[in-house]
């Protein structure tokens, strides 16, 4: 039951002549990946709208289908049949290519995330580095979209988005570094393998259940929210501030592609968070091992998506300078502290002293930095262009 998809794929691949078997195997993985995550994207759009609506004390979409769950179908039909307007002064080639340059790397990033036992699309020796490399390539797509529209708001939104993405990439990679340090390998399959086993038959060996892992997980999630331009970090695409920022001039299917790219980016980085910190496809308790591994992965993924939707509906949007101060003056020192703590965790002798020292090492700087940031000692609002 656990390996049902793997055996099904092996059976399909064996039907093809031996020369083209690797190609067909990869094509089947890619097709499965795209199909699953596009369906998950459709489900997430309606879940998000209903979730946000309930947080805001109203119903969400409830006309199309039972309780509104066929809304993505209506949205899809609308975006396909909408007229594709391109401004006459826009740069036609770059304007056309920008959504593609956004969507392709985020699907590539999904290839190294293991979704079940033996269910990673590719097993790369430097899997985590590959993930961050293709994540960095999406920034170029944002710039292409913003610049090619020949629209001042669009360009401003793109500049802000790139500044935000570059700033939050550093804490993201540093907090992932703690896990790589602890496991000793950049391969995602090795990282999931290192979180197997249960301490005392009850508690899993997940990285989130250690002091440095917990702090690094929170830093990773915050940086991931900012990387995917999700609220509360969605100033570059805020509807009330800058009229949807760098994808103002996109209509119809290209807009849907941007939307798809953002959501799949969110899934990819949640998948990496699950792989690095939440034990991948492992079950939380040894008594629940009979549930297949991919069910656990997607359950954790849905839990993280619910967390993202919850945070979006609850917190107000951050201003640009608040965003920058938060990244450079809070998250970066915090992630450096987690790196040091992860190192200390590895070399201290086992026992409660290790827990105590590492917890203090994480909580102390956190409280100090939070106090400094909120009291305005290290971050003041500056009106640079209004002076």
């Amino acid at each position, binding site marked *: 039951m656990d390996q049902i998809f793997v055996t099904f794929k092996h059976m399909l691949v064996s039907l093809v002549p031996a020369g083209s078997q690797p190609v067909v195997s990869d094509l089947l993985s890619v097709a499965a990946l795209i199909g699953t995550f596009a369906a998950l994207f459709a489900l997430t759009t309606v879940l998000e709208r209903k979730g946000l609506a309930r947080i805001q004390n109203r119903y969400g979409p409830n006309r199309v289908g039972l309780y509104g769950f066929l809304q993505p179908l209506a949205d899809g039909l609308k975006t396909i049949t909408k007229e594709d307007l391109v401004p006459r002064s826009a*740069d036609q*080639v*770059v304007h056309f290519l920008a959504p593609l340059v956004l969507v392709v790397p985020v699907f590539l990033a999904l290839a190294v995330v293991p979704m079940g036992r033996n269910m990673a699309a590719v097993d*790369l*020796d*430097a899997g985590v*580095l*590959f993930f*961050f*490399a*293709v*994540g*960095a*390539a999406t*920034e*170029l797509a944002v*710039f*292409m979209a913003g*610049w090619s529209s020949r629209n001042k708001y669009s*360009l401003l939104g793109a*500049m802000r988005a*790139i500044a935000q993405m*570059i700033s939050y*990439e550093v804490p993201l990679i540093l907090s992932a570094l703690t896990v790589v340090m602890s496991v*000793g*390998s*950049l391969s995602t399959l090795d990282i999931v393998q290192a979180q197997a086993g249960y301490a005392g038959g009850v508690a899993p060996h997940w990285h989130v259940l250690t002091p440095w892992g917990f702090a690094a997980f929170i830093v990773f999630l915050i940086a991931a929210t900012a990387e995917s331009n999700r609220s509360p970090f969605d100033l570059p695409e805020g509807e009330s501030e800058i009229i949807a920022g760098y994808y103002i001039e996109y209509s119809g299917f290209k807009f849907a592609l941007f939307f798809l790219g953002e959501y799949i980016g969110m899934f990819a980085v949640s998948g990496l968070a699950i792989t690095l910190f939440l034990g991948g496809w492992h079950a939380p308790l040894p008594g629940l091992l009979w549930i297949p591994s991919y069910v656990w992965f997607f359950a954790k993924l849905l839990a993280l998506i619910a967390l993202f939707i919850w945070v979006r509906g609850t917190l107000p949007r951050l201003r640009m300078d608040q965003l920058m101060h938060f990244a450079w003056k809070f998250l970066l020192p915090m992630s450096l502290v987690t790196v040091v703590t992860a190192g200390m965790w590895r070399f201290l002798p086992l026992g409660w002293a290790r827990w105590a020292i590492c917890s203090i090492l994480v909580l102390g700087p956190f409280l100090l930095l939070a106090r400094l940031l909120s009291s305005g000692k290290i971050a003041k609002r500056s009106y640079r262009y209004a*002076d």
Partner: protein
Amino acid sequence: MTPLFGLLGFIIAASAVAAVALRNLVHCALALSVSFAGLAAIYLFLNAQFVGFAQILVYIGAVAILIVFAILLTGRGELERGAGFSAGWMIGLGVALAVFGTLAGLLLSSHLLVREMPPPAPTSVRDLGDQLMTHWVLPLEVLGLLLTAALIGSVVIVMKERGPR
């Protein structure tokens, strides 16, 4: 010389030529990013996974963005027709061909090319890390110092521009 290598070489050469020859500077920067991507593909073709991904992360994710920011913030979007091509291009072409011919002749007649090299052992990231931390640790630390100096220097330069108002 497999077809894939030929295709990659063509992509790199074509995008590099486009990066020089296109009129719109941002198009040039984007064509340069394509050549970076082609170079990363060549690294992967040579089984150097770490270097290939680091190429994408550093060059496309940071250097290309730096280039486009520089183009945008210095305000020069379009070049006039004929800019970038000097009048003495024929002499330049002759000199380039002469240098290429000399280098190619020297390399092809060198005795180093005749020796049979055994195929290199496949290196993993762990081997790279081991070497960096034992044999090459001094260059690594010096590089770190250099990058820190560059970072501090850039901040100092920007701070000075907004000096006492």
